């Protein structure tokens, strides 16, 4: 229902961030490394894209943040998924499924 157009790339990044947070709360660097890990190194998210996405998603209410301590006892800002975030992940996943299927079809059709 929510038809706010999200650009494809933005959508992928948001989806990957949401996905990486499914396992639990994480700070920015953790998210970045987690994405690298789950995409087997295909996506290396630079802070220049990561932080704008995080701030935007927090304002959308998909994730929320708090200040905590990192594994090396450093103060770090942690993010975790909200209920709306989980819903959004579902929406994005479905959408991505459709898109990737359509693109695969298109490429095969030639």
């Amino acid at each position, binding site marked *: 229902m929510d038809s706010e157009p999200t650009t494809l790339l933005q959508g992928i990044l948001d989806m990957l961030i949401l996905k990486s947070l499914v396992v639990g709360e994480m700070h920015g660097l953790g998210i970045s490394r987690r994405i690298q890990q789950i995409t087997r190194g295909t996506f290396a998210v630079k802070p220049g894209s990561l932080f704008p996405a995080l*701030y*935007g998603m927090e304002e959308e209410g998909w994730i929320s943040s708090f200040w905590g301590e990192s594994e090396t006892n450093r103060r770090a800002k942690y993010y975790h998924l909200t209920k709306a975030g989980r819903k959004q992940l579902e929406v994005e996943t479905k959408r991505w499924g459709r898109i990737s299927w359509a693109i695969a079809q298109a490429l095969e059709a030639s």
Partner: protein
Amino acid sequence: MPLLEKAQSLLRNLFSSRRVEADLDEEVQSHLEMLVEENLRAGMSLQEARRAARLELGGVDQVKEQVREQRIGNWIHSLAFDCRYGLRQLRKNPGFTAVAVLTLALGIGANTGVFSILDAVLLRPLPYPHAERLVKAGAYDLTSGALYGTTSYPDFVDWCEQNRSFASLAAYEDKTFNLGGTSQPEQVKGEVVSSDFFEALGIQPDKGRSLASARNQQTVVLSYSLWSRSFDSNPNAIGRSITLDGYSYEVVGIMPPGFQFPDSEAELWVLITSLRPDFREEITTRGNLGFSVVGRLKPDVTLPQAQASMAVIAHGLQQQYPDSNRDLGVRLVLLHEDLVGKFRAALLILMGSAGLVLLIACANTSTLLLARAASRHAEIGIRSSLGASRRRIIAQLLTESLLLAAAGGILGTLLAFALMRALVVWAPQDIPGISSAHVDPRMLMFTALISMFAGILFGLAPAWQGSRESLNAALKESGRSGAERSRLSKIMVVTEIALSLVLLTAAGLLGKSLLLLDRVDPGFRTDHLLTIEVYRSMSNGESADAIWSNWTGFYQQLLGRIEALPGVESAGATLALPIQGQTWRTVFNIDGRVFWSLSEQPQADARIVSNNYFEVMKIPLRSGRYFSHRDTKDSPHVAVINETLARRYWPQEDPKGRFIEMSAFGAGRCEIVGVVADIRQANLIDEPASGIYLPYTQEPMPWQTLLVRTKNDPMSLVPLIRGEVAGLDSQQPIARIATLDQLMESSTAQPRFRAALLGGFAGVALLLAAIGVYGMMAYAVSRRTREIGIRIALGARRGNMLKLICGQSMTLTLLGVVLGLAGAFAVTRLMNSLLFGVTSTDPFIFTAVTVLLCGVALLASYIPARRAARVDPIVALRCE
């Protein structure tokens, strides 16, 4: 992004951006350090690790900048989306949108219009530099506390010499002049002022110079309007000569166009010291409280400090001049307060009323939105089941309300333009600053603010309620939310009725005051009476006989000629026209009685009149006789008193033949020859005061208002009378030509204006309340069609249905009325100063508005009730 969060995020951006920035700063910093740690763990040297980390991060400031851009872009993007969606929704329901926008426009327009006047009169500073330091100083009676507001010239001179609080002090007094040496002789109002006058106000002439720097004493500064009228705006007017009361003055300066001090009637300013000897005598008398004083406080002196130091000076003068200054204190009032203080109550009440109209408009729009939410609940339910958060839905609904409010605000501004133009023309012109009311950024900002306030106010409850829809409830047609919606709209309607009742009561009280004021018997006949002011210039160094023939002789000759004109019934003259606020209070003694203290000394209002004044004005004689042609300057001095005075000092006897004595006007000892009925002299409101009439044949005065009683339209005689005046003295101007009826009407212009404006607001309120009741009942009936159908099918009579629906609306109406009566009871007390002849709890008005409101509410619910009674059970049961 939901509006609430957007607003939160915007607020964060606006108000706590430093905190957000710090947050971001710290986060990016910790990210960088964690990268370094990671690299170190990977075995890099510290330097390498740092370099690699910075490389990956891509610059701390760049990252922060990207975050900022993203947030702002996001915000604007989703706002635009919400607006587009909202506009589409509003376009889909043009009827609803039109009614809501019109309703809001009425409320917002009324507020904007009244605010523009309130702003021009009360809020905007006076047009003088550092006007907040301008203060009026005036004497007051230490024993009674009565404020005279003026002082004597010698006291003013002492204040100037002794005070340390004022940078400058200036005295001024109104004076009428006959202006000559210009295109045509004319009577103008001017001010005699002390030399620092323009310096104290901080305004210098546009052209030429002020009076202070003039070497010549016989100099005059002209107003812009007099200069354009008499000199055709000729810049060479500076240095030219004009005559004032026959004396030559040199024009030294022209004031800028907007300069109006002390009021808009003042058209020229001359030095006190330039006046003839007979006026000088007036200015050397201590105790002659003729002068107003305005002063400019020094920058570091506060009003209380200045007040305290002036009290010391006044105390010194009391000791030094006990005869004249005993009991005289000095009171300082801010000039702004002095000028506009008396309009504050009325303007605030009007502003409050406009505010109530807006509240009612909001309540009305709320009910409309609630009814509409009913038809939208399926849409909202589906949206929420598809994952839209509650905040998201509230935000969307609020965006729609704000769009409505914005449209209402724009239309309201247009309405306010029209209203303001009407108000400025129609409002009594004696309200200072009112003509300067205009559209400006302040006003537009006010409109924008109240529109936004209104949008949130009327949108919040329906949005909150609407967002609670769940898909479940949406699919079940009449869920819990339906009941809640109608409860909310009931609250709105009760509010509307209560607020309307308050407004109606206030308007009713003002209206009744006005009616009573119009019905006051002034004690004389006002119709077919023409009034013309004829001011004879004093002339210097003449004998008493010459003065008599120049003044009274002139008037007698003129009145004789006028009475001979066709269409004239009779013609007389008076020094002080009634109902114009003009009184000449004077103390007198009564032969054979001793008054020990000043406060016991009898006082009365002295009225110098032509010998046939009572006949012309049709004031009845109670005993004795009127003045006659036998009362001449050579016969014994006589006086006629009014009933109030007679009752006060001769309660048991006829005062005819008694003697009174007064020094004012050189009257001396006079025999009372008659008692006449009371008239209202100063104004219509005050009860008649003691009055003494003296014949102008015995007490000549150079300043009379002619009263011509005519058979037909009084104004048609003006050219003939003008000709007679010119025939006697070609240099004699006439002024202030009006019928007494016109003067009476303009004396009630302010109450009329207030009552009309408040009445208009009350009318709008009543209309909106009626629409509110109608809308709510129509909605209720449509929702209950099925239930009503069943009841009718089961044998309920249609009359019962009518009763059921009307009864329901009456219950709400009565609840609103009870609340409104309580509110009105609390609020109308604030209006006491505006009321005349009625108390603020006048039972007639309270009853009348209650009946009126109930009647209108009944009528408004009758139409839906009749529809309910006509429900066809078969159709009703089938329709769902």
